[in-house]
């Protein structure tokens, strides 16, 4: 184990005159004048958002246009500040996705409560809720800051799906082995 005492040297006579420090400071400043600026002129310039960024939570459709959320309410349960409120609902039997049985009737995320923790996305068993690139939300009233289902789908859009698990289930049902 190495313990190193930090070095403390008394100032030399020259250093006590402040002059070397002023010179060194000016040198540093001069050097930085000729370096590229680091300031980002927001909002004219926008930062680049890396993949996997945790922005505003949104709901997504699968590529066939089906609402992915099945209103299992797991995200509502896990959300630490209790920002999510879901009203589960059924699906019209005439709907091609009727075999999914449930979809949210209403889905609200209160962005004044949300802490962008990403736990909802992490636990969702349907990959239906995603924190995407949107990072700036403003509104004049509290009500405006509550994203309802329509707004959530507008923000979310469509994301690719690797499994189409409900389509597989439907195909299996049609072949007579539902489970």
């Amino acid at each position, binding site marked *: 184990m190495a313990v*190193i005492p*930090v070095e403390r040297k008394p100032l030399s006579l020259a250093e006590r005159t*402040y002059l070397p420090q002023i010179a060194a400071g000016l040198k*540093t400043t001069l050097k930085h004048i000729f370096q590229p600026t680091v300031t980002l002129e927001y909002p004219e310039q926008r930062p680049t958002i890396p993949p996997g960024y*945790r922005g505003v939570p949104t709901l997504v459709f699968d590529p066939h246009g089906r609402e992915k959320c099945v209103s299992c309410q797991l995200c509502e349960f896990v959300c*630490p500040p209790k920002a999510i409120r879901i009203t589960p609902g059924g699906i019209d039997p005439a709907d091609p996705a009727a075999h999914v049985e449930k979809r949210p009737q209403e889905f609200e995320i209160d962005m004044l409560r949300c802490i962008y923790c*990403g*736990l909802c996305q*992490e*636990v969702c068993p349907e990959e239906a809720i995603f924190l995407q690139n949107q990072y700036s939300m403003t509104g004049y009233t509290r009500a405006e800051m509550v994203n309802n289902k329509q707004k959530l789908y507008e923000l979310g859009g469509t994301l690719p799906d690797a499994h189409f698990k409900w389509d597989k289930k439907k195909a299996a049902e049609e072949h007579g082995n539902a489970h």
Partner: protein
Amino acid sequence: MPAEFTFPDNAAKAADAAPEFETEKMSLSMGPSHPSTHGVLRLQLEIDGEIVTKCDPVLGYLHRGDEKIAENMTYNQFVPYTDRLDYIAPLANNVAYAIAVERLAKLEVPPRCQAIRVIICELARISSHLLGLGAYGIDVGAWSIFLYTFTEREKLYKLFEELTGARFTTSYTRIGGLARDVPAGWNDRVLAFCDQFLPILDEVLALLTRNKIFMDRTVDIGVISKADAIAYGLTGPNLRGSGVPFDLRKDAPYSGYEKYEFDVPVGTKGDCYDRYLCRGEEMKQSVRIVRQAIASFPGGDWYVKDARRIFAPPKEKILTSMEELINNFMIVTEGPQIPAGEVYFEAENPKGTLGFFIVSKGGGVPWRMKIRSPSFCNLSILPKVCVGTFVSDVVSILGSLDFVMGEADR
């Protein structure tokens, strides 16, 4: 008391002053909204002219009841709350909390997970010290330091953002692992950061270390003796600045710190200048650790595979297997299943030792959690160290203690 320590004798001088010079004591409230109190700390000062004769810290303006909140949610749900303890180094808090719960569950995380945790802890340390240094510069009147350190900190935030998805509130660890693996090429970008960071750090430190104005404001100011530092429970750079070589990364290694080679800088006098020097050197040591951790970066899993009742299965499996789907539901709703028992774990955070004392009665929710926050304990020295100094020195002492109120009040 060892002879090498000297104390400011302003108070003694004030006390010895002839009675005709004695003035009426004045009571001065410094904070809670004062730029130099770094948050909502209030100091109730009693001053005699310019000399502080009594200092009474008033805490609790930022109290959110984190310990009680923890009792009302599962272990994983509390991770975002740990971000908000020492919000200057959230990653280090995430790691300390996760390790505490894992110790309770007697869970050993794989080497890759440990290495990632070490890297992020050290990056968090650099980020925290950069802010501490920049803010300290402003406190004592050196503005440009802040601009340079914040530029560096921004680069670190870019790295954090890429790794965790958020710049500030990282919520990166989970019980038994991490939220996700490191993205491709991230380690190289960390190395690139380290390479360009060291010369800039030297440049920044050179602006202060031999600067007469800075030295006038810090040397022999706020001297904390070895004995006092230990008696008041100081930890981190504040303790080491007083000459006590206590560093949990060496003395009680966790997350594989024993594998890395680094030095522990200690001060000789225990004044503000020593604490500043220690922080500067610690950043260089952190870079050393990060480089070693990346050089020997292990492959394999980044979470505990066989802890089926603690770490949720990967998304792939949840979407394809009914058992895993049910398991996911169980872990989320009931919480990671932690056996009954008690644990106290402390980690060497940038500000000092952050400890979690957790009592579990089994199940997914702690029965009681106590958080030992370094900033809170470090502040306890204020009534002792501020007495006898000038009011302007209080600013210098506060800056040198580098505390954060989110953690002190928790």
